[in-house]
């Protein structure tokens, strides 16, 4: 270990942000840059991520909520107003609509007078993890892969400094993946993508090593930070090996494992949320301690992660953590601290062997695309998550404040009313309407013929197999909207619904306590007797929300508690949910909503149920529901509201059975 005079340069310090409108987000970005943030990380709202206009029925309640709405080129120009794109490093968390948002970015840069070749940044552009975890996909897997490679082929030629894909393992861990699953799925995904790029005729074979070198990763780092550090060292070694052996990439610099991080948020708790600050700091150690496997960019969640969206101050608190780590500690003054450690080497070897086995399993399932379409990969994630939750319920996996050390003095952070709206960012209720008004104004002032011609060119390219990138950029300049672009893609390639991963192999691990599965089963039996047939539950995910963990685990536990469970997956309209409730003759409808749109979506579902003559079917709601909103939901007639604090799934099942039994008694 040698200490040196000149410390290493720190990683790129970022905060993932964006909300309400392009103008509001622009103000936020400028503030963050002034505070010393060194790059931008753009969060888009769900309609933008899934290719809908703000006034589409699917967008109800979601516009401007969890990110910035970008409906057309003027929004993109506003978002970067006063921020010179030729000098900015911009990371965009965008996937299904990545070709379109990149096209808008290029068009906005061109209007600023920037040279395409100077553009620096990242499009996430990883669809496999959307199918497996994140949920903002649009098109079937094969078509998605094709558009991903359109982006890659385009940037190789036109935007040489751009990272066209960020292969994500982050979201897999957030869906319950173990380190083995996280690493193997991500690496297999990256190889699938590179194979597809290599098969393209418009990518010069001589440039292929450069393309491989441009693939970067976006990983997770959980609370078991030693394991996580080992994981990243292994990922780097395996990536280097795969690029050399499989593709013959000779230049070691092009085989370097470059990754950004968001640390684990799944383990951040609603109970005693102040403890999350420590968790975040420890999780960060896993990705900065070992110089050989250090992150290129880090973004951290905030202490109030499980409560709702962070306010600027909450984000600043996390930003300061990064700055303290980089500038106060001696972290950046040393060479790698772990090379040569026999303990670390042993852990590395074990993990690498498991990862190879898992990658061979994917191969045997027919490769990534087949194993995504069949649901095989998803099913393993759901199983892993069920095991994780059961360990927490049993108290085997300790979570301070949740299943141990639960007592707490009153918290000054809890807000005036003991845990309400003043702990989180409340998005301006008018944001959606304002965005719709802007969109309508935009539609009127653009040239209709240009728009029609641009859409036709886009359609032709999509159909013929030609790259959609240049036609998309032309469409951006012509004033085409996000929804119009998405509609053309849906028309050509078809809409897709991914497998839910719920199958026979997913079961509740034995002995899940406290409360006990037996007690829940007895309650379900009692309710079923009162109802005349087995208690039938519809688990519904209304809106564009892709957070499926809760719905999946509720469905698994409900089945294992003896209920018959109808679950169709994410992204249903209130009308589709009511239709299923009607046809299936369910006794209880349970909604899972984590997108913050519950105050819009719950009334919409209730109205849809009434329209199908189902006003008497009880409704329960779970998800990220701020305490302040609970009374409003109950007043609408919701029977029960569950939040992450209700981590005892058996108790939830008992409560659902009681709701059903009560409705049987009332009938």
């Amino acid at each position, binding site marked *: 270990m040698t200490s040196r005079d000149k410390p290493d340069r720190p990683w790129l310090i970022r905060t993932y942000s964006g909300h309400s409108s392009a103008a509001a987000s622009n103000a936020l970005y400028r503030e963050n840059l002034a505070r010393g943030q060194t790059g931008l990380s753009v969060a888009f709202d769900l309609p933008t991520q899934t290719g809908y206009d703000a006034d589409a029925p699917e967008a109800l309640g979601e516009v401007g909520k969890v990110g910035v709405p970008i409906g057309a080129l003027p929004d993109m120009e506003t978002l970067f107003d006063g921020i010179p794109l030729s000098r900015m490093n911009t990371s965009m968390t965008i996937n299904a609509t990545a070709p379109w948002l990149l096209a808008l970015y290029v068009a906005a840069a061109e209007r600023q007078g920037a040279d395409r070749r100077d553009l620096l940044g990242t499009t996430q552009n990883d669809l496999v993890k959307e199918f497996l975890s994140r949920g903002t996909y649009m098109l079937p897997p094969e078509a998605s892969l094709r558009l991903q490679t359109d982006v890659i082929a385009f940037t190789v030629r036109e935007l040489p400094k751009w990272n066209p894909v960020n292969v994500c393992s982050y979201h897999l861990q957030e869906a319950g993946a173990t380190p083995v699953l996280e690493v193997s799925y991500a690496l297999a995904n990256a190889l699938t993508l590179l194979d597809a790029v290599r098969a393209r005729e418009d990518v010069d074979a001589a440039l292929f090593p450069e393309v491989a070198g441009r693939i970067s990763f976006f990983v997770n780092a959980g609370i078991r930070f030693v394991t996580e550090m080992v994981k990243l060292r292994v990922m780097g070694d395996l990536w280097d090996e795969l690029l050399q052996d499989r593709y013959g990439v000779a230049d070691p610099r092009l085989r370097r494992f470059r990754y950004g991080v968001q640390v684990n948020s799944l383990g951040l708790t609603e109970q005693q949320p102040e403890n999350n600050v420590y968790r975040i700091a420890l999780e960060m150690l896993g990705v900065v301690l070992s110089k050989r496997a250090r992150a290129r960019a880090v973004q951290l969640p905030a202490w109030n992660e499980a409560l709702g969206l962070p306010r600027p101050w909450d984000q600043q608190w996390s930003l300061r953590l990064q700055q303290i780590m980089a500038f106060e500690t001696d972290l950046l003054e040393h060479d790698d601290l772990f090379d040569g450690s026999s303990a670390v080497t042993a852990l590395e070897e074990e993990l690498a062997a498991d990862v190879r086995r898992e990658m061979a399993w994917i191969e045997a399932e027919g490769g990534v695309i087949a194993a995504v379409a069949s649901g095989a990969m998803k099913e393993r994630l759901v199983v892993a998550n069920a095991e994780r939750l059961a360990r927490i319920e049993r108290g085997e996996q300790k979570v301070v404040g949740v299943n141990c050390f639960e007592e707490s003095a009153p918290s000054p952070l809890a807000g005036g009313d003991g845990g309400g709206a003043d702990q989180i960012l409340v998005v301006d209720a008018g944001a959606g309407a304002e965005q719709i008004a802007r969109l309508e104004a935009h539609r009127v002032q653009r040239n209709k013929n240009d728009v029609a011609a641009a859409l036709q060119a886009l359609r032709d390219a999509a159909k013929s197999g030609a790259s959609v990138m240049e036609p998309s950029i032309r469409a951006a300049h012509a004033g085409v909207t996000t929804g119009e672009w998405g509609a053309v893609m849906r028309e050509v390639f078809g809409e897709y619904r991914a497998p839910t991963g719920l199958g026979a192999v997913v079961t509740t691990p034995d002995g899940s306590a406290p409360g006990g599965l037996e007690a829940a089963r007895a309650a379900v039996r009692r309710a079923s007797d009162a109802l005349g*047939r087995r208690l039938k539950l519809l688990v519904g995910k209304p809106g564009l929300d892709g957070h499926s963990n809760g719905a999946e685990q509720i469905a698994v536990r409900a089945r294992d508690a003896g209920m018959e469970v109808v679950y169709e997956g994410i992204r249903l309209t209130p009308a589709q949910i009511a239709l299923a409730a009607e046809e*299936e003759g369910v006794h209880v409808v349970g909604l899972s909503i984590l997108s913050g749109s519950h105050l819009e979506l719950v009334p919409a579902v209730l109205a849809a149920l009434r329209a199908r003559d189902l006003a008497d079917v009880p409704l329960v709601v779970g998800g990220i529901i701020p305490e302040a909103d609970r009374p409003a939901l109950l007043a609408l007639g919701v029977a029960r509201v569950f939040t992450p604090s209700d981590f005892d799934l058996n108790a939830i099942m008992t409560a659902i059975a009681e709701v059903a039994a009560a409705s049987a008694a009332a009938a």
Partner: protein
Amino acid sequence: MTLADDVRAGSRRAVREALNLVESERAADLAAAAELVDALAGSPREGARIVGLTGPPGVGKSTLAGALVRAWRGDGLTVGVVAVDPSSRRSGGAFLGDRARIDRPPGDDGVFVRSMAARDRLGGLAPGAFAGALVLRAAYDRVLVETVGVGQSETDVATVADATAVVVQPASGDVLQFIKAGLMELDGVLVVNKADLGAIARRSLRDLRVALGLLGRPEVPLVLASAHTGDGVDALARALDAARPGRPGPRAPAPRAARRARGRPRDRAPRHARHRRPRRARRRPRARHRAPRRRRP
């Protein structure tokens, strides 16, 4: 108007309540359920047919059901679906996820999909599936019954269906297994799904044709289809509509239908099987009877 009248009139509310009733195990509901099914079984909607959809898990039955629904809707026909999923032996609970594969235009009320758990009928049809199909047949032009695809369900479904599509997976060995299992005796259509897989699907089709010839059943309709691309789905719909023309609906007389709607699910299938098999055997002396193999023990 009685509930039966409302079902015949196509009221979705009535169809929902009728299906709830025939699924009920409450003693007080059994007589009403029996009466309802008796009433409806004797008065199918004009030209309505029940179509069974069977084959091993994962072969694409649900996806194909979605494609058939689209094809029939395209012809202006209304469609009812009963989709049966297995129940967990441990808890008695079940995941009912097949309906996700049947997508339809928003606001299309010409389709009604009811999922049922097989309950204690391991591998067989759900207890309410027979009665449910008869209810739906009174309100919809086509009724699809998708089975779990293991155990007794293939032969079970034939007792209620006018025609059955037996779906096989290309290059899986299913082809031979199905023939050996005696499924050839069903009044139906053999479907090789996943035609988009290309050569292996076409080869399975050729193998089947040869096998049917050797078994002396060259007349069994054979369709190569892809639920994904839609190729062959119209042909399948037509073959199902044409299968055994003129045959009256389920031959089970109404009182038997009523008995079905009642409890005692365990006895049910064997009784049907006993009833049906000798008749088939007489009609087709060459056919052999063997229990379909269990795909997943």
